[in-house]
């Protein structure tokens, strides 16, 4: 319990900063929605001048994109990016910071097992993420409700917004897993940004070209917002893969961490 509280306190400030940033992004993006919605309406009129088969092809995606839910999914992409960096940072930090700050000796001479240590740290990290997600959900629901121009599917919004937590858990696991492998993480942010952006870019390439194979490679695309908007359902095989990654990385991290050589000086 002491370790848990100590860790919570250590991540208090970054968690608050991340939460505020994410809420700010939500507000900024959603504030632009009214103007965007006007643009979209105007373009709808332009569309009428084009051949029908063409407008039918583009119109479908278009309507999904231009209502408040589609617009939010677009903004959500960048929120996911921030959320992933936050989670990856946490995952890397909880494992690597004792070595970096030279507190490993202090901690590991206490009468607790390494499993207990890592469990408390993991729980503290998950709590921090939960806090961020609660604030995020709240801000999304309020802002969307304020800027909406037409009715939208509330269930869809919940399902999309909730997937942030899922993504963050994957990256938390990946972060821990990476940190148990690297003997000494000198700078958390370099490692996490490098990896997160690599996944993000693969995700962007995969979604702009509709490549199903690449989708498996990047957690960013496990939850497809547009699929949710249409079917109000997650794609279960990807959720399965995500859960498998979370379990595997966490379990393996524990196994390796128990035997890891920890530098005390």
């Amino acid at each position: 319990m002491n370790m848990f509280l100590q860790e919570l306190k250590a991540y208090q400030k970054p968690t608050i900063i991340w939460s505020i940033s994410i809420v700010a992004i939500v507000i900024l993006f959603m504030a632009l929605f009214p103007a965007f919605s006007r643009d979209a309406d105007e373009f709808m009129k332009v569309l009428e001048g084009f051949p029908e088969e063409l407008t039918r092809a583009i119109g479908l995606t278009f309507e999904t994109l231009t209502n408040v839910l589609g617009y939010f999914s677009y903004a959500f992409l960048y929120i996911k990016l921030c959320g992933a960096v936050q989670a990856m940072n946490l995952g890397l930090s909880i494992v690597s910071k004792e070595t970096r700050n030279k507190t490993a000796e202090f901690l590991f001479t206490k009468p607790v097992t390494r499993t207990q240590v890592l469990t408390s740290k993991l729980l503290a990290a998950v709590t921090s993420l939960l806090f961020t997600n609660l604030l995020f959900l709240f801000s999304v629901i309020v802002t969307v409700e304020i800027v909406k121009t037409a009715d939208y599917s509330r269930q869809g919004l919940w399902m999309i917004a909730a997937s942030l937590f899922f993504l963050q858990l994957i990256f938390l696991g990946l972060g821990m897993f990476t940190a148990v492998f690297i003997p000494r993480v000198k700078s958390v942010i370099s490692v996490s940004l490098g990896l997160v952006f690599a996944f993000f870019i693969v995700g962007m390439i995969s979604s702009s070209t509709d490549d199903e194979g690449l989708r498996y490679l990047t957690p960013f695309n496990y939850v497809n917002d547009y699929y949710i908007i249409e079917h109000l359902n997650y794609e279960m095989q990807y959720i399965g893969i995500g859960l498998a990654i979370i379990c595997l990385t966490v379990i393996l991290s524990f196994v390796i961490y128990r035997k890891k050589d920890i530098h005390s000086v």
Partner: protein
Amino acid sequence: MNIVKREMKANAKALIFWCIGVLVMVGAGMGKYAGMNGNGDTINELMSEMPASLQAIMGTASFDLSTAIGFYGLLYVYLIVMATIHAVMLGSNMIAKEERDKTAEFLLVKPISRSTVISMKMVSALVQLLVFNLVTLVSSIIIVERYAGVDETTGTIYLLMIGMFLLQVLFLIMGTAIAVFSNNATKASAVATAILLLLFILSILINLSGNPDLLKYVTPFKYFEAESIINHHQLEPFYVSLTGILIIALTTISYIYYQKKDLNL
């Protein structure tokens, strides 16, 4: 000279990873182009009628995606993001790491002035940026030409890469300046990357709002956009000079302040 060598050696591994990353990115990205069949003129015509905010959300901008160079323009944004993250972390790390790793004392008691230290580090960083840029340039030319077949794309790629190099240098110096001014060495690269992310998201918001206003001067991601470079075959002189001025100003400030900086040894 020894410092340059030392710095190169310390960063060699990271640089190789980044270069592999950018190679994969260009290769995989353009590989996707080969798999895409041309959209045809009507879609392009339709796209060009679209308001800017809609183009942003559809992820196309006014690129002609049926040509190789248009598709490359789409990739360019991500190349820029990669290159600038690399640069900003390099810049902040080269200053911050001496304090973080407690090597500042060792380095600064050597019979060289602080400005020599910074200059040598800068030289080594510039060489690395150049390597990164050349790898991108050569791989882009080879790969894009395979699909384009027409020689005129090469000139555009040169221009795009010059733009990228200017941004790389700008962000390098920005990272350096942040590290020089920050009192906490472990936080320096986190702050630098946070600012980078902020500027990136700002550039997306500007695309979305459709009317750039004054804000477009704030974020360097809007200075050299593939869209205008590809369509007009030139870098905008105004932004080139703006970048130049920013680089000179930030360099001067960093040099002056580093002379007097209180180091935590």
